[in-house]
């Protein structure tokens, strides 16, 4: 009797042990699936981070390029006031204004209008067809051609 009792206890114990293992296996499988999903999500995050990094680099490149263009534009404005003429002398707008007041007045008023137009466009005002299609020096806004005359190539 005692012997059969021991056998029965061993069988029941073995059965419970196997059941426990099966349960563990099921949980382990479930965990594996969750880990795979988490891995996949992490891969997506890494891909997004890579994309973000590329966007940041590209944005910085664009900003640097714009800064460079604006610096060149500013240097060109400085040159306009202090241009060296054919006789090797520096252009002096003051001397010119004494000698040829009406002509300089016309130039200054035209320049003032062009400068205002540059600000309007910088604020988002759309370009006119004339501005878009200007390709010659005589047609452009010389204050900010990069901004107002996209078809113009400096020559």
């Amino acid at each position, binding site marked *: 009797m005692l012997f059969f009792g021991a056998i029965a206890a061993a069988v029941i114990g073995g059965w419970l042990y196997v059941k*426990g293992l099966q349960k563990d296996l099921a949980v382990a499988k479930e965990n594996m699936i969750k880990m795979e999903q988490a891995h996949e*999500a992490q891969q997506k995050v890494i891909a997004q981070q890579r994309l973000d990094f590329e966007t940041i680099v590209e944005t910085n490149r664009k900003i640097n390029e714009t800064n460079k263009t604006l610096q060149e*534009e*500013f240097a060109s404005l400085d040159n306009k006031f202090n241009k060296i003429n054919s006789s090797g002398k520096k252009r002096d707008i003051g001397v010119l204004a004494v000698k040829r*007041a009406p002509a300089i007045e016309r130039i200054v008023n035209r320049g003032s209008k062009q400068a205002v137009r540059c600000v309007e466009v910088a604020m988002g005002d759309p370009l006119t067809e004339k501005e878009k299609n200007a390709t010659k020096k005589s047609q452009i806004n010389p204050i900010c051609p990069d901004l107002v005359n996209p078809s113009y190539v400096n020559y």
Partner: protein
Amino acid sequence: MLTTSCSSIKPLEVLNLEVKREPLGLNSPDIAIFEDLKWFIINSKNSDEVFAKLEKEKMDPVLFGLTDDGYEALSKNFAQIRHYIQKQNLIIESYKKYYEPEIKSKIENTPANK
């Protein structure tokens, strides 16, 4: 029996919660409408003529003056303000594209940001 019926492996709990922020969606400010301004060039020789012209055109015979160097400085200052606007536009646009790529911006296609 006690040791075999208690599982040693605990199920994982993964929580994913994503709540998207409402886009700010601000519009660009209106473009300023500038008033016309007229410059007068006045020097030691033409001052009488310029003031006579002002009176003839029913304007007050007074001018607010700048020297040639002052005019040059004003032009450069104006250019710097314009450049600042352009840079700010570009930065704002870059932020919008980065954080709200699905929203078409109003100023995206403006010449200042191409």
